[in-house]
């Protein structure tokens, strides 16, 4: 059976062009970038080249602004803890939206345990940050504010420029977790006024094991990973040259193709939204138009997400869910609860994230499979009267 992969937000295959470009750094050009002989310097050059490509993707001021890390989670930890501890004189309060990824929430909670005040800004029913509430909550002691560029569960894109203005008027630094938006929508850190930005390699068809943190010139942070002093002392550890070289090439391709690829994906997204919401008691979650071009998320009344996932897998289609049963904690998605869904509504979620392997002609099979899955599970459900 042909698979249809619709969970690009969880994992992406490394693009064949990226692999071709970076594979030499696995076996042949395997040197340590800190070694002064040619083999080492070739590896160093690979890292420098990748740094330039990532700089270009987000219009950073210079390559010095980019720190390579091992993952987006690591970048988030570095951004939040590294900035809060280094700039303790600016205040001991931190803020985030209520729908951040757990790799932002947990570092924030950790700061809270260590004496910082941590508050979360509510969102509306589409997941957009409540700017009025935000203006009231931020103050001159708010050293780090973290708001994601776009949400991975509901696709909603935040008004980052406006948020940046508020942060710089009333608080200190703005961190933006751009993992879900990496390579999908244009990001210009200078234009948006962003101080710290997290991006992820695997979220743009690069190898797992690499991420990056952009740090605006003038913003001081301290390292979380201590050791040999790589990445200008801000992230020690011998560089994962293969993954970083791959990440750079992935960034270059993403920038080049975004103009054509994102509209292509948007057509698929919109067709899926149009057809799937025709199913009885099926609703789109997140903003209808101000959402990532490749992202279509739904909730279905009276049925549960993990069983949706398993049923769809039987059709050869891989999807994601935010349901409690599929999470390690058995709690409903904090994002879905934050946009106002009741617990039992939050359990019936299905998140589709499209990529290069998807095409418009897959839509009929996807829609048919969703229809049959929903029908089948509703026959089983005690909530359908």
């Amino acid at each position: 059976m042909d698979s249809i992969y619709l969970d690009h937000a969880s994992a992406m295959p490394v693009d064949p062009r990226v692999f071709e470009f970076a594979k030499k750094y696995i076996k042949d050009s395997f040197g340590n970038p800190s070694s002064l002989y040619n083999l080492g310097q070739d590896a160093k050059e690979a890292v420098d080249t990748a740094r330039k490509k990532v700089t270009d993707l987000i219009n950073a001021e210079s390559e010095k602004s980019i720190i390579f890390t091992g993952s987006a989670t690591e970048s988030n930890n570095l951004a939040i803890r590294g900035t809060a501890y280094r700039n303790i004189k600016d205040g001991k309060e931190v803020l985030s939206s209520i729908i951040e990824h757990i790799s932002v929430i947990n570092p924030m909670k950790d700061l809270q345990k260590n004496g910082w005040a941590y508050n979360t800004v509510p969102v509306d029913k589409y997941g957009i940050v409540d700017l009025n509430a935000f203006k009231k909550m931020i103050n001159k002691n708010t050293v780090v504010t973290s708001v994601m560029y776009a949400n991975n569960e509901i696709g909603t894109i935040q008004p980052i420029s406006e948020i940046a203005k508020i942060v710089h008027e009333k608080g200190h630094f703005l961190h933006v977790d751009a993992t879900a938006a990496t390579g999908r929508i244009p990001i210009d850190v200078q234009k948006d006024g962003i101080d710290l930005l997290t991006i992820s390699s695997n979220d743009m068809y690069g190898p797992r094991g690499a991420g990056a943190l952009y740090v605006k010139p003038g913003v001081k942070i301290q390292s979380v990973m201590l050791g040999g002093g790589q990445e200008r002392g801000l992230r020690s550890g011998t560089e994962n040259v293969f993954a970083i070289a791959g990440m750079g090439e992935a960034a270059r391709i993403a920038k080049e193709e975004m103009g054509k690829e994102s509209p292509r994906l948007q057509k698929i997204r919109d067709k899926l939204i149009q057809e799937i919401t025709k199913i009885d008691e099926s609703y789109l979650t997140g903003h209808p138009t101000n959402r990532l071009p490749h992202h279509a998320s739904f909730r279905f009344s009276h049925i549960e997400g993990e069983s949706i996932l398993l049923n769809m897998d039987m059709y050869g289609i891989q999807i994601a869910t935010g349901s409690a049963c599929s999470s390690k904690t058995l709690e409903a998605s904090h994002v879905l609860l934050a946009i106002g869904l009741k617990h039992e509504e939050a359990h019936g979620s299905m998140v589709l994230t499209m990529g290069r392997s998807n095409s418009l002609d897959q839509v009929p099979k996807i829609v048919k499979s969703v229809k049959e899955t929903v029908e089948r599970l509703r026959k089983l459900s005690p909530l359908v009267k």
Partner: protein
Amino acid sequence: MNPRNVGVIENPDGYGKVGNPVCGDLMEMYIKVENDIITDIKFKTFGCGSAIATSSMVTELAIGKHVDEALKITRGDVADELDGLPPQKMHCSNLAADALHAAIEDYKKKKK
């Protein structure tokens, strides 16, 4: 994902309902009993793959049994029949056994 015995029984001899949709787990169990033997059993489940599997499995274990024998079916029995469940899913099998027991208790109460 081919659950057995899905459905409802009109005028069941015993009916059990456990769990709640807030937690993401709700099971309804219906039994038909003749001379204290479970002759028919049907269920409906709102829940994950393990919840559906364990409800289905408990109906297979219970059918044809004497109600007192069926009362002895534990979550461990259900999990064993499925060749084991991951630890965070064990509560689903608990729910399945509880739903069956609730239906049997209901039957016994009605009988009096």
